[in-house]
């Protein structure tokens, strides 16, 4: 092991999650905090999100990504005990909380931390994960890396584009490309509904007359050196392409926005349990993982729709880590959540008994006029969409009669046609 420095808290990743967690921990009195970031700039994905729509829930005003990040960067500066290390990559974390990092300025350094908060965010699913046949030419980008190339580095990728996937980044990039004079021929979505926020469909596609093809996919990529065209086909109920109905769209750029996966190589290394439904670590009401003293928050735990939620949740994790360091978190009586009808995922996965716990819930499929049941608690949900988080604040009385687990389900809804 390289030379070791003892610190109270190490936060891995200085995106919105890591920054909020570090600030909250510092405010709660944690003295020596190290915030580690592999990029040169703080803010994670925010600096490249130059559009607005951030902060409505958290700051009650509309900000751009860089503005939102800036507010937290200012907060970080208020705490002299909080040290930020940029261009520093975490290579190893052990279950006993040794964090090994590397950087050009310091070489290898190891921190022995009292607590660790994992806030590595998520990464994009690449083409291979969806296995599109055809050639492998230049001009295929994931939406996020294209956004980085355009908004941070100032490059134009091509002249005409097709976007596969109608998640929020795909929608935002459709507008961004259009504004830069790139012709966006279509946004394609495999599902019969978009996974993006409704406001983005209106503001990014409809306002620019960019066609959205639901239940369609790319079935083949053409072009030897650079993308020349893609073949598109509608899909049937089982997502099988209907080849006879296929058509070609010429373009020199294919943008993939086919999903985000929590970035959990380090979590696996530590040995924390992952939830197959979220792809992130299983956490409790304090955002503590299944390994003591290791916390996880933000998109590494669950891919959120809104950065505001990431900040709220991460502040909670930061305060919890502070309490843990003071020896205040000992109660380990918890109940697991159980996904019932039309529920894909619930975070946190373990409810600490007696603790009020905000839940982030995702449905499997769209429906209307359903009732959300959480233990004994319930609320009406007029519109349920797999693309939008369902919020519910679980109160201690909701689980008073719960026996062994907390069931979460949507009941009595009407499925769209």
């Amino acid at each position, binding site marked *: *092991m*390289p030379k070791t420095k003892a610190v109270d808290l190490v936060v891995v990743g200085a995106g919105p999650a890591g920054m909020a967690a570090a600030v909250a921990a510092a405010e709660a009195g944690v003295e020596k905090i190290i915030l580690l970031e*592999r990029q040169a700039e703080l803010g994670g994905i925010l600096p490249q999100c130059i559009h607005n729509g951030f902060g409505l829930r958290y700051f009650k005003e509309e900000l751009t990504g860089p503005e939102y990040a800036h507010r937290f960067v200012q907060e970080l500066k208020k705490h002299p005990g909080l040290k930020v290390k940029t*261009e520093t*990559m975490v*290579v190893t974390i052990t279950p006993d909380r040794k964090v*090994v990092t*590397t*950087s*050009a*300025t*310091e*070489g*290898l350094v190891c921190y022995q931390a009292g607590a660790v908060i994992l806030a590595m965010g998520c*990464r*994009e699913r*690449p*083409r*291979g*994960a969806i*296995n599109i*046949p*055809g*050639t*492998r*030419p*230049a*001009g295929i980008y*994931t939406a*996020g*890396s294209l956004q*980085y*190339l*355009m908004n*941070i*580095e*100032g*490059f*134009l*990728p*091509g*002249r005409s584009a097709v976007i596969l996937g109608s998640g929020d980044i795909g929608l935002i990039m459709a507008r961004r490309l259009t504004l*830069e*004079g790139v012709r966006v021929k279509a946004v394609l979505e495999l599902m019969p509904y978009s996974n993006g926020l409704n406001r983005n469909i209106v503001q990014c596609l409809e306002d620019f007359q960019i066609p959205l093809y639901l239940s369609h996919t790319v*079935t*083949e*990529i053409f072009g*030897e*050196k*650079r993308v020349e065209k893609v073949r598109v086909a509608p899909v049937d109920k089982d997502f099988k392409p209907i080849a006879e109905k296929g058509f070609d769209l010429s373009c*020199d750029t294919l943008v993939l926005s086919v999903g985000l996966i929590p970035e959990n*190589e380090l979590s696996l290394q530590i040995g924390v349990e992952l939830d197959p439904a979220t792809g992130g670590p299983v956490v409790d009401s304090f955002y503590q993982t299944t390994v003591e003293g290791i916390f996880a928050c933000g998109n590494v735990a669950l891919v959120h729709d809104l950065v505001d939620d990431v900040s709220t949740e991460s502040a909670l994790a930061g305060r919890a880590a502070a309490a843990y360091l003071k020896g205040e978190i000992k109660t380990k009586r918890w109940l697991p959540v159980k996904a019932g009808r039309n529920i894909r995922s619930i975070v946190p996965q373990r409810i600490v008994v007696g603790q009020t716990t905000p839940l982030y819930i995702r449905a499997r499929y769209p429906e209307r006029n359903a009732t959300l049941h959480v233990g004994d608690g319930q609320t009406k949900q007029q519109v349920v969409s797999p693309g939008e988080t369902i919020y519910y604040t679980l109160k201690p009385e909701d689980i008073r009669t719960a026996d062994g687990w907390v069931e979460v389900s949507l009941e009595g809804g009407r499925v769209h046609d």
Partner: protein
Amino acid sequence: MSIPEVDVLVIGAGVVGAALIRELSRYELDLLLVEKEVDVSFGTSKANSGIVHSGVHDRPGTLKAQLAVRGCQLFPELAAQLGFLYKQNGAVVVARSREELAELEKLAVNGRANGVKGLSLLNQEELRRLEPNLSPELVGGLLAPSGGIVVPFDLVFALTENAVSNGAKLMVNTEVQAINPEQGGFFVRTNQGGIRAKFIVNAAGLGGSEVAAMLGDDSIQLYARKGEEYLFDRKLEGLVHRTVFPLPSQVSKGILVIPTVEGNIMIGPTAQRVETPDLSTSLAGWQEIYGEARRLVPTLQPNDLITAFSGLRAVGTTGDFMIAPSTLSPRFINAAGIESPGLTAAPAIAEYIVELLKESGLGLRRKQNFNPIRSVVRLRDLDFQAQAELMQKDAAYGQIVCRCEMVSAGEIRDAVRRGATTLDGIKLRTRSGMVRCQGGFCTPKIIRLLSEELGLPPEQISKNGPGSELLLGRLRAVQEEGRKEEQLHA
């Protein structure tokens, strides 16, 4: 500009050309290796199964059998000298039924006739013990412990780098277009100018018949047989330890489950004759491969797929490698029809061709100072101590560019010095952008580093050569900034 004059010109920097130039660099010779692509190993040698075959499959008496067995024997020492990624993991051919057990025995007899060492037949239980994740339907196996796996392009890079450090010359972006015999050798025309060579070796892979025809030699007829391959995430490491073969068919060794040196699992290849040799993959190819592979390892899941590619075998008319002096000139050696097991055989093909050159009159005098060793820095293979020392010496090794594979800026820069000029060249030399995220995170950084090291604007950085540039240009706002700055300075 003076015309280069060389003793031996090797055409084609695939594994055959690379192994040959390295073998020849042991001698006092003027050597030149030319390659039409922007980089070495961008032909068939880039995209294949990466298996060092034991030689059980080939028909006794063929060059394929002789050279595969010899090549396989040469690998361990070669890997120790050149530090490419290789592992002797062993191979197992499996039987799905009682009838197939008899076939396995025949294969064992065949292998022994070829001189393959250490073969043993396994019953169901023994097979299960060695490879617990194989399908319970399989009834027995033939174990070939000498078989191995190699990262094929890493082998080619290692061979060429070592040859160059021993004095050989390499020219990429250089396509041979005409060959004219003249007194004592040949005059060769390329897109980069003329070359005089006393001897020529045609190691042009799929281009082999064209190159031979430039001399007027029409005896080399080749067609392309495509093979698709599918690569799975490294989290499956250990699913199988040995390379798993079904019993072979008439045209190929079948669909295999291959553990790669880097810990991924790969399945493939298909074997399909194609008229237009493109490198696309297809739904049909995937379905065939996945279906067959699942019969060997039932737990494979499409979710774990990270990428797919295809390669083209240059198949000749004789069913065997065609390695011989041209009937038109003993100074022109064809190495054609090098289909599988060409990767395995390459080191032995090189030895064989050196003998042919000698017979044709090439004088061979050993170099006193030949250095068989090549070394490269691979940060992720070092322990903390060694990593720390390296970073002390050069801070760039502490700056990680590829998070999935832990590749540093220092290694990217090394890769450029080793010859990479494109994104693919970097990817193949360092593995950055190669696995999990497929470059989502590191691509912008690599474009920047390439542009700095090569002194080219980012718009000229390509994936794999002209026509595959990654960026069209600057955004309007950025262009305007630039114009304003210019005006200010003016």
